[in-house]
């Protein structure tokens, strides 16, 4: 983005980037603490919830602290969990893990709800607007606005720039949104957060962040098969012992089923396709029996931060804080990040409110102290060894370790395991790993990529610069194709990347309009050559309520 453009400015006390559970909770908590502050929230989706992908079984704990009267306000938590199953899958069978609720009470879902997180965010957004918070969907924070060593807000994306970078007829320059404090709550792998972490060196001395890619479908099934509140998780087949991941299936709402699959992005086999893995699990009898006779309504994908406590960066810096998945508060053994994102947003808001009230509001430093004194810290502390154990010892021993850590030590083992490498380092060259033969879609339970992406209602204004940038375009042919045979054309859940032959040479085609903003390419590209930048505001998926 060129800086010569004359930019208008707007000024607020607090600016919040991203309208997920973290950002919206921060906004509401701030308003509760500072009735007169000006609070602005920008969201790149065309409306709040349009870019939210989650399971989601949620713990209502943080919500109850934020808005104790959530029931009277008709929060969309309508399906309590009624039954639960954890399966270890082999190709044809599934073994139920018994007494899971008694052995690992932290993982049991009694008292939790199956929700559409998109619906919950829309509801939170409505509460926040009623409280006088300025919410601007359709506006993306394109870059941090740093002045004199301090984050002073963000610059929103330019609108109406053509594909070749010229100003089109309806060009509208992005604005400088100034704030005394900025809360970055962009979710996993936030594009502004990444740059801010780098600028202020916030990750020094902590483990690298590790991610998973969750791909999800929402189905409508025949009423006679619907068991509202039934939740099922699986691990094992079809992933090999060295790859972390598993499927979920939740019955909720009116005859709806949320089905999806998470693949740990520290996988090493360049031939692996997370999309194909998620498709084929549906053919397993333990999953097929729930979906048969139904129809698929929605498709989407999103990365989640899995690193937990050891991967949390420094949380505050001059002018702002990080909250939610942008920092990495998700509890991986529980596969829950909503209540932790909300709680971190609330703690961030409390620290920011204090900083605004004091002289010279440079840093909301009390955030870390507040975090360490909260249930959120205790929860992440007890969960801290599980994900690294899987990375070290594989699925079977990892699961055994998880059992020992939880049952014997109750999460308080006197050691801490570490994630040793980044996800992109984990990928092995294509000739060192085995190609995977995936079955063809049957059009009933399993589908191809194109018809899937169609169900995400994704759209980007076509005449705009490609928002997926290769830092060094020449690297692709030598490395991505030469060494890895274009892993991006398999891990991208939206078919954005295609390796095509022209003039006897391989080229990378980037179908940027299809991008569902999952951030996987930014994470997994072996040389970190792909940079995900925000496209024109409002672009991306348009997930309906239900997602």
């Amino acid at each position, binding site marked *: 983005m060129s800086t010569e453009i004359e930019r208008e400015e707007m000024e607020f006390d607090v600016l919040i980037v991203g309208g997920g559970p973290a950002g919206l909770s921060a906004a509401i908590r701030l308003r509760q603490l500072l009735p007169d502050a000006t609070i602005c929230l920008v969201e790149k989706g*065309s409306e709040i919830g349009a870019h939210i992908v989650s399971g989601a079984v949620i713990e209502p704990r943080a919500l109850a602290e934020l808005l104790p009267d959530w029931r009277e306000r008709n929060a969309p938590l309508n399906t309590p969990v009624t039954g639960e199953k954890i399966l270890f899958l082999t190709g044809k069978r599934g073994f139920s893990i018994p007494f899971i609720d008694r052995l690992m009470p932290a993982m049991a879902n009694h008292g939790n709800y199956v929700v559409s997180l998109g619906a919950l965010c829309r509801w939170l957004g409505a509460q926040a607007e009623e409280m006088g918070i300025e919410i601007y969907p359709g506006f993306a924070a394109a870059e941090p606005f740093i002045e004199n060593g301090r984050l002073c807000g963000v610059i929103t994306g330019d609108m109406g720039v053509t594909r070749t970078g010229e100003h089109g007829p309806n060009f509208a320059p992005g604005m400088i949104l100034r704030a005394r404090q900025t809360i970055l709550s962009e979710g996993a792998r936030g594009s502004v957060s990444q740059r801010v972490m780098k600028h202020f060196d916030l990750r020094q001395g902590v483990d690298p962040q590790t991610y998973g890619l969750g791909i999800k479908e929402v189905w409508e099934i025949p009423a006679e098969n619907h068991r509202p509140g039934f939740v099922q998780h699986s691990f094992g087949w079809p992933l090999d012992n060295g790859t972390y991941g598993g499927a979920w299936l939740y019955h909720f709402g009116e*005859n709806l089923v949320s089905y999806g699959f998470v693949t740990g992005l520290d996988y090493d086999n360049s031939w692996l396709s997370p999309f194909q893995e998620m498709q084929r699990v549906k053919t397993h009898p333990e999953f097929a029996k729930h979906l048969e006779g139904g129809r698929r309504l929605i498709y989407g994908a999103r990365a989640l931060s899995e690193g937990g406590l050891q991967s949390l960066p420094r949380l505050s810096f001059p002018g702002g804080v990080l909250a939610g998945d942008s920092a990495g508060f998700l509890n991986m053994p529980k596969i829950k990040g909503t209540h932790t994102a909300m709680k971190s947003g609330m703690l961030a808001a409390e620290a920011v409110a204090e900083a605004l009230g004091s002289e010279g509001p440079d840093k909301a430093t009390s955030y870390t102290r507040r975090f360490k004194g909260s249930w959120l810290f205790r929860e992440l502390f007890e969960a801290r060894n599980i994900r690294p154990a899987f990375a070290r010892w594989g699925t079977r021993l990892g699961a055994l370790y998880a059992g020992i850590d939880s049952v014997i030590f109750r999460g308080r083992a006197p050691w801490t395991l570490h994630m040793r490498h980044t996800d992109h380092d984990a990928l092995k060259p294509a000739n060192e790993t085995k190609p995977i033969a995936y079955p063809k879609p049957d059009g009933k339970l399993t589908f191809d990529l194109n018809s899937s992406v169609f169900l995400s*209602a994704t759209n980007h204004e076509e005449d705009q610069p490609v928002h997926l940038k290769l830092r060094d375009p020449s690297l692709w042919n030598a490395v991505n194709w030469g060494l890895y045979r274009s892993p991006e054309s398999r891990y991208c859940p939206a078919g954005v990347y295609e390796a095509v032959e022209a003039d006897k040479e391989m080229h990378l085609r980037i179908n940027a309009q299809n991008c569902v903003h999952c951030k996987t390419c930014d994470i997994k590209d072996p040389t970190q050559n792909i940079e995900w930048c925000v496209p024109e505001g409002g672009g991306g998926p348009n997930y309906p309520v239900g997602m």
Partner: protein
Amino acid sequence: MKIVVPVKRVVDYNVKPRVKADNSGVETQGVKMSMNPFDEIAVEEAVRLREKGAASEIVVVTIGVAEAQPVLRTAMAMGADRAILVQTEAALEPLAVAKLLKTIVDRENPGLVIMGKQAIDDDMNATGQILAARLDWPQGTFASAVSVENGRITVTREADGGLETVDLALPAVVTTDLRLNEPRYATMPNIMKAKKKPLETIAADTLGVDLAPRLETVTVIEPPVRKAGIKVASAAELVGKLRDEAKVI
């Protein structure tokens, strides 16, 4: 001159519409809704006419549920001065919409009504024409260019066989086609200002219009999935298949 712009809240053009499980209609619950794209073009054209000095005030009107207010706010963020919501829960057909719009036009007394040529939900392409007839005003439909001068409006129409230019006395009804203009973006300061612009709500049943539907929807179904094509080896095989399987010859 005052311009009235009717705008409709429809399922967003990016959304793949889904038929309800009971085949009674298209699912709109929880689906993204926004302004009918042709109506955005109409708002844009009105704003341009005002910028050129041909108009002094722009009033946007929508007929529908309370949730349609954001569409009016968007229109005001693009430049409209004030808004009217004619509130009703009823599912309306173009005839009822045109009758309601007529009551608003009678009250507001504009020199021009600009509206979309069709709404992308029902695709009737009817409301503008019915409104013109009921007002007994001239109409310029499918406009791809307009200019206002000396109490008249020249409209270039995208007709089936090419372009047709008509010259109408004002007041008139104009409906917009895709190529008329490219609507501007609503900027943040303008969205903020739009929150403070006046929005009046009128209950539809106070306007003395018969809203009863004239049509009955029997069933709504999705178009059949197209079967994959096949390759035939010879002309004879093709003829055989057309005759025996497709039964078209």
